[in-house]
């Protein structure tokens, strides 16, 4: 590109270290906070006290911190569900549909054990909880397998297919929990039945066991993509499907496999949020909001460069800002969604800074003598 007598070129920065990437991310976060300060000031609030409230609530209070962690686990699982197909070069935009299916799968298992009758039904947690998790994982896998199969067999566009399935799954959930649906709760308020207390997920100070599974998954996925045969095949397919085909890597199996794994993880995210998080224990009326929240998995996956370990702090930050933002909104009487404003600006700055870290702009003066 030419600007006057200067030539402007984009060059790839070859020396990219993980420490540098972390520093640049922190810088991006600070800049985002700086930009959102303007909104605070416009609303007549001292930005420092605003942020103090946000971070205090999200990361230090005994009520807010578990909320942050639970949201973070949810975002992290959605990130993994996005990362696995992304390693094969495929875009999973269907975490929402897969997690709806996961939630339905989990509640279907509980339903089969007669859990709908009353919250006081006594069920054996050692049997029912693992089966609920299994139901969630299998349902998510089934819904995930559809775009994977269509991609592998007919080379359809996985983005379009997953988005269409999101819509279908959304309405299936509505059918199941609203207006006389089989999973409708007793109150008739358009939400699902509450699971019995006997099968509440085991937890430590407000954080369910799903955090352990998420942590193990992070390590496992990291291991999968750096050390294993199947991870190598997925990555190779992601870099170049033609080269993968040459190497004997199946262009049918890989898309199917990554979408099944992605669907399983997203299905588990459905179990986590609706069945395991304390004080939820049902498919909520606003379940669509959690479908929307799953899209932060895409941002988180892209920013972490598809690295499951690097995704952890980003998911944690996102989870904190959502809950802290929502809290400060009520507390300081802000008339708009500060949580989404913060996340939106943060997304832009993170992507922007990542870009300028990975690329550099080169200015060159040309043709001065002419």
């Amino acid at each position: 590109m030419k600007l006057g007598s200067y030539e402007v070129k984009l060059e790839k920065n070859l020396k990219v270290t993980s420490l540098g990437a972390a520093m640049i991310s922190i810088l991006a976060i600070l800049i985002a906070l700086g930009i959102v300060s303007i909104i605070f000031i416009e609303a007549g609030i001292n930005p420092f006290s605003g942020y103090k409230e946000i971070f205090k609530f999200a990361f230090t209070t005994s009520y807010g911190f578990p909320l942050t962690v639970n949201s973070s686990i949810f975002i992290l699982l959605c990130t993994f569900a996005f990362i696995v197909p992304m390693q094969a070069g495929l875009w999973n935009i269907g975490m929402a549909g897969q997690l709806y299916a996961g939630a339905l799968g989990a509640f279907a298992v509980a339903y089969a054990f007669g859990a709908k009758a009353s919250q006081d039904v006594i069920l054996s947690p050692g049997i029912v909880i693992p089966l609920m998790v299994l139901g969630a994982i299998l349902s998510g896998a089934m819904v995930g397998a559809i775009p994977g199969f269509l991609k592998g067999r007919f080379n359809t566009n996985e983005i379009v297919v997953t988005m269409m399935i999101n819509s279908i799954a959304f309405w299936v959930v509505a059918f199941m929990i609203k207006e006389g649906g089989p999973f409708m709760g007793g109150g008739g308020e358009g939400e699902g039945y509450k699971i019995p207390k006997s099968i509440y997920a085991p937890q430590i100070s407000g954080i369910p066991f799903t955090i352990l599974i998420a942590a193990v998954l992070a390590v496992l996925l990291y291991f999968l993509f750096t050390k294993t045969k199947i991870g190598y095949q997925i990555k190779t397919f992601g870099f170049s499907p033609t080269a993968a085909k040459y190497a004997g890597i199946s262009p049918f199996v890989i898309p199917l496999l990554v979408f099944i794994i992605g669907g399983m993880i997203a299905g588990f995210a459905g179990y986590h949020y609706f069945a395991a998080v304390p004080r939820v224990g049902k498919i909520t009326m606003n379940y669509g909001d959690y479908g929307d929240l799953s899209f932060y998995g895409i941002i988180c996956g892209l920013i972490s460069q598809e690295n499951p370990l690097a995704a952890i702090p980003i998911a944690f930050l996102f989870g904190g800002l959502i809950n802290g933002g929502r809290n400060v909104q009520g507390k300081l009487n802000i008339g708009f969604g500060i949580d989404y404003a913060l996340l939106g600006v943060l997304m832009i700055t993170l992507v922007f800074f990542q870009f300028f870290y990975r690329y550099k702009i080169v200015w060159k003066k040309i043709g001065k003598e002419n």
Partner: protein
Amino acid sequence: MPFQRDEQVSKPLQKTIKHGDTILEARGITKRYPGLIANDHIDFDIKAGEIHAILGENGAGKTTLMKILFGLVQPDEGEIFVYGEKVKFKSPLDAIQLGIGMVHQNRKLIPAHSVIENIILGHPKAGKILDIKGSTLAITELCDRYGFKIDLKAKVWQLSEGEKQIVEILKALYRGAKILILDEPTSALAPPETKKLLASIKIMTGENLGLVPFITHKLPIVLTVSNRVTVLRRGKVTARLATSQATESSLAREMVGRDVIFMLDRMESTKGKPILEVEHLSANNDKGLLACNNISFSVHEGEILGIAGVSGNGQQTLAEVLAGIRKSLAGKVTLDGADLITSSSLDRWKKGMGYIPSERVTVGSIGDYSIIDNVMMNYFFDDEFSKWGILDSRKIRKLAEEIIAEYAVAVPGPDTLVKSLSGGNLQKVILARVLSRKPHLIIANLPTQGLDVGAAEFVQKKLLEARKDRAGILLISEDLDEVLSLSDRVAPMYEGEFMDIIPIEQVKREEIGLMMAGMKHKVAES
């Protein structure tokens, strides 16, 4: 400033050019890149009515010089004179306005458009409303003058490589080029096509056009057409001489800096049992057209079967079907007696087939992978290199290090990303990866295309070594010299069929050339 540039254009065009006038001169051209000097004080000139060939290995600085002369790259030092006037190219647009045209090796044509549409694309005279009729008339006149035969209404994807080359030349001429830079002009052409092109080139020089072909190999062509030759080696001019004083071997020596043995040491090898047997094989290409038509042949232990043909005659399809990455329509394929047709490509790798693809960058390797990970492409499925699905990274690193040492791959280490490798080094990695598996059957698709003389020779030697180790080799090449010097039997391929399969002792070069152009064996004899 724009108006100055306009003055520069108008002056030379008004001048009358006599035969032998210097029309382009470059003095002391120097271009440095981090870590190397691509062009080191290169002097070069071209006269009207002259063909001045530039020879050099890959990496000798030919491409950089070519880009500088066409304004794609600005030199760090040095001056360029066109018709005696000092010029400075800011972009190719400046060069085009001064009558310099470039014919690219990787043709930059739009396949879905017709020949005429491609020629007038972006032409200043084309205007907003296309005057197809007027342009057709002008271009037909150009064709008649230089002896090009081409259907202007044909779509470009239907054309052969030679015809595409002609379209590129016409495009440059129609834009008023007086100096044509040709990048590897004959590398993809069949002998008859080459001949036609050379004839047209001769006519052009009669019209006082200057031609600058850049050539890596095919030394005989340099000798037959050019008036002068400049040889580059490592960014420097090592020789400039009138072609009449040059011989093939003297030019080769100047290019590589040492003597090149043109006669490869092809030891006698007794033909063993058949390894690959193909019966009545037919297959379609990507466009759904029949590209392999009822082909039958076999490859034996310790034998090289060479398929000679111009690109686009079904060799690619055949190689892909044998490698298991393309489905066949009909026919039977067996490897070591076992039926292969239903086997996946992975099965074939496991059963002892090794495929060296022609598309090194897009199919044979992954640029963002290290050498280790690229070597893994043909080893990840091997039980020796993984346990319970976990790859043995130490073993694969050791193998990569061995490959680098044995094949003298010029890289800092096995963690180097292959996208930084030159064509020759990349091919070494691919070749080493495949050959180290000790395959019974090797399918080598254009193994030396685009490589410089030294690297090509290395690849050929390695293939002969594999032959000595009793592998059966199917060699697909567009370079007839290569096929003839390596093969035990030669199969000329034309439009999806083998015209014949001839033992090397009975091969007559001209005959093969005719068969590659579609003449059956019997016809040639009568």
